[in-house]
């Protein structure tokens, strides 16, 4: 029916035991055997520090780490592997830009974000504002949980130095119309950063076609370990950036008086990097590429439609975000009248349905929508009809218990 064997896919994930309906993939996706195997293989056969050792293990570790960079460069279609900086995650990547790119900004310079950003794409800019006196402007959100792009002309101007928005919302699932953002930013010569934490797990990207300057994402949301992520940056932009953290690997020459920094990507990778995690992230990228993209897309679309239809059919439930299938991910937030999201989640948990409730690290969005929080179901390719059935059975239980 869905064109690929979801049962077989589930068997690749040791954690997906019968009775577990894992619908919190937007927070952290589960990890397949292939990725764990890559991690363990690295740790048990090539483990060493990278870049400075001449012995066999060190050469192998360095080669594996470099190969991971090449793999991720391919995944985002970078022109050059050196445009890929390994970070600790999306948060680490955005903070890196806020410091490295932000160091050149002057008081009064403007950064445009949106109201529906994750805290990780808000707070680093607030900290920069407090450090450097830049002005932070936020695109509002539409009633159906999208960035209000019609406001771009009003917010973007000659002082705009960066537009930093999410590629897809972790709350509403809305996918941003990047072309419109890029066109507006280009009109004033401002670079664009996309927070790709939610989008990257959905398949290879083309940063060149997107026309952006920075792209950030996390390993743990794309079936890889915690503690690793990627900042892709356009070569020229990275080259002009100041270092962020100081330490080993990121230097060319250190004296106590002054230090010369290495070229990107090393300039931005201070200290021993997350080597095995990068290797595992590369394995995850390969694993995602190995999925039958069309069939997975159709499968997720069908399950998302079941979610949206089923929620719409229940009178006390309101979908927070786009109610249609256009321009959205398989992430669906909703509010149940008179029931707090945590109570929804708790009751579903009793049935093995793992759902997230709360502000989803997007408090300004919650304020804009005047909500304390939402409950959210977010799907991955391994979710199946059984998961959706269990979800609705649990939701009906909620409605029954909280009349």
């Amino acid at each position, binding site marked *: 029916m869905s064109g690929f064997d979801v049962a077989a896919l589930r068997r690749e994930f040791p954690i997906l035991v019968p009775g577990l309906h894992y619908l919190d993939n937007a927070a952290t996706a589960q990890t397949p055997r292939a990725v764990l195997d890559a991690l363990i293989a690295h740790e048990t056969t090539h483990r060493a520090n990278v870049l400075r050792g001449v012995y066999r293990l060190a050469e192998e570790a360095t080669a594996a780490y470099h190969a991971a960079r090449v793999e991720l460069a391919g995944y985002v279609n970078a022109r050059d592997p050196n445009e890929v900086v390994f970070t600790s995650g999306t948060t680490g990547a955005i903070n890196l830009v806020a410091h490295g790119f932000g160091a050149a900004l002057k008081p009064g310079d403007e950064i445009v974000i949106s109201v529906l950003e994750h805290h990780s794409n808000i707070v680093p800019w607030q900290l920069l504002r407090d450090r450097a006196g830049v002005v932070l402007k936020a695109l509002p959100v539409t009633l159906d949980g999208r960035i209000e792009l019609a406001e771009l002309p009003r917010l973007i101007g000659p002082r705009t130095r960066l537009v930093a928005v999410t590629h897809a919302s972790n709350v509403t699932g809305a996918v941003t119309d990047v072309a419109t953002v890029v066109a507006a930013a280009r009109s004033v010569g401002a670079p664009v950063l996309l927070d790709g934490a939610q989008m990257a797990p959905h398949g290879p990207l083309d940063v060149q076609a997107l026309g952006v300057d920075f792209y950030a994402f996390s390993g743990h949301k794309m079936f890889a370990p915690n503690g690793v992520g990627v900042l892709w940056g356009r070569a020229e932009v990275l080259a002009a950036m100041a270092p962020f953290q100081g330490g080993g690997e990121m230097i060319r020459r250190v004296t106590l008086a002054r230090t010369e920094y290495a070229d990107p990507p090393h300039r931005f990778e201070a200290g021993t990097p997350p080597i095995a995690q990068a290797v595992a992230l590369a394995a995850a990228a390969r694993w995602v590429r190995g999925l039958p993209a069309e069939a997975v897309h159709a499968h997720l679309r069908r399950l998302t439609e079941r979610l949206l239809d089923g929620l719409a059919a229940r009178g006390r439930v309101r979908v927070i975000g786009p109610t249609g299938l256009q321009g959205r991910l398989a992430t669906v937030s909703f509010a149940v009248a*008179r029931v707090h999201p*945590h*109570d929804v989640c708790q*009751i579903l*948990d009793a049935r093995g349905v793992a759902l997230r409730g709360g502000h989803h690290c997007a408090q300004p969005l919650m304020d804009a929508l005047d909500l304390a929080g939402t409950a959210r179901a977010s799907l991955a390719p391994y979710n199946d009809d059984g998961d959706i059935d269990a979800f609705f059975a649990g939701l009906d239980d909620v409605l029954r*218990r*909280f009349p």
Partner: protein
Amino acid sequence: MSDDLYQAAILDLARQGAAATRLPHADATATVDNPLCGDRTTVDVTLAGGRIANIGYKTRGCALCQAAAALLATTAIGLDAPAIAVGTAAVTASLQDKGPDPMSPWEGFGIFTPVRRHPSRRSCVLLPFEALAKAFTAASAV
């Protein structure tokens, strides 16, 4: 599993909590956010002779938080600061794994002991206590 979290007693209290109102002339007010879930409780108090005379509150939170606020608003009346601190400690302890049941006048909070198996929900029950302590301190300082 967690079904008994939502027994009738808690749900009744929660409804009471959701319907609660603020005090018009409070001696002090405190608002506390739960950093992890964004829930928020505002508590108003009036004091008489160092003891709580009246409590008003408004809670944007889950059933556990609403129920706890409602129960606290009745239990705390007439208590002074040390008594509230003792009660807070007793209820906090009662929510821990294998914690002791709370003793009089806090025994009503025994309905929350199913939270022992759900550590992430403990702060829901405790949020109103935090707000009350803050309001009490503010009122005493006036």
